[in-house]
């Protein structure tokens, strides 16, 4: 069965979704990711959806779930690279993905994650967060 690979980068987990998700694949990803967060003690999860052309309410719910579940495990989730058409459609569908952080690309997402984690731990290293701004 297909699986979406989860990459570990230091404190963070990186998931790049390259295919159109069907339900079971998305559910597997949700389960795998939560397991990985626990196992690696990751502080942040970065989901890159720049190659995803369709996000319907089910997919939106999975993304929301991953964010909430990670939060419970003390890890922040940032969704990066959402296509304009997908963003417009999600808003019209009535799914603003509340509670999910977003960034334009992986690089900006990393900075955002770092700044969020720094805020949680201490105030050090503020200079490195040039582009990032927490909401």
């Amino acid at each position, binding site marked *: 069965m297909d699986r979406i690979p989860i990459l570990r980068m230091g404190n963070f987990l990186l998931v790049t979704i390259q295919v*159109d998700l*069907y*339900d*079971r694949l998305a559910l597997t990803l949700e389960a795998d990711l939560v397991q990985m967060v626990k196992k690696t003690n990751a502080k942040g999860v970065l989901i890159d959806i720049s190659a995803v*052309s*369709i*996000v*319907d*309410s*089910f997919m*939106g*719910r999975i993304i929301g779930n991953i964010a909430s579940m990670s939060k419970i495990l003390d890890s922040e989730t940032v969704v990066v690279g959402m*296509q*304009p*058409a*997908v963003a*417009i*459609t999600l808003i*019209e*569908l*009535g*799914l603003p993905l509340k509670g999910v952080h977003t960034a334009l690309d992986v690089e900006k997402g990393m900075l955002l994650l770092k700044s969020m984690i720094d805020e949680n731990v201490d105030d050090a290293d503020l200079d490195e967060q040039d582009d990032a701004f927490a909401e």
Partner: protein
Amino acid sequence: MLSLSKETIKVLKEQDVVLLRNRVKEVAVKIKMGLVNQTRLITAASELLRNMLRYANGGNCIVEIVSSGRNNGVRLTFIDKGPGIPDIALAMKDGYSTGKSLGLGLPGTKRLVNEFDIKSKVGEGTTVTIIKWANG
């Protein structure tokens, strides 16, 4: 309204959803629908297919290219023989759902398309028709 092409696709399992999405995309591209409208249409189709699989174990989807003189569009008709919807007005309300979803299936879907029509009979099934115009 004129129907320019018509085909019926059976949807019985989850993977069929991806197939149908691709087919709808092909048709939308053919009538030069813009990317955002394509995304709206395919997302709407995805929502309705999901409903069909969840509540009625699948059904048929008719994919048509329609024309109203000035404008071309894609018409999708979802026909299932499921349990039907007892109160359509209630099902069309934001935030209502009997299943385990977010409850924005039908009203959310309606916002994504230009025309939305639903007919349902308890015990017989549900038919949902949507139209998205190429530039609408």
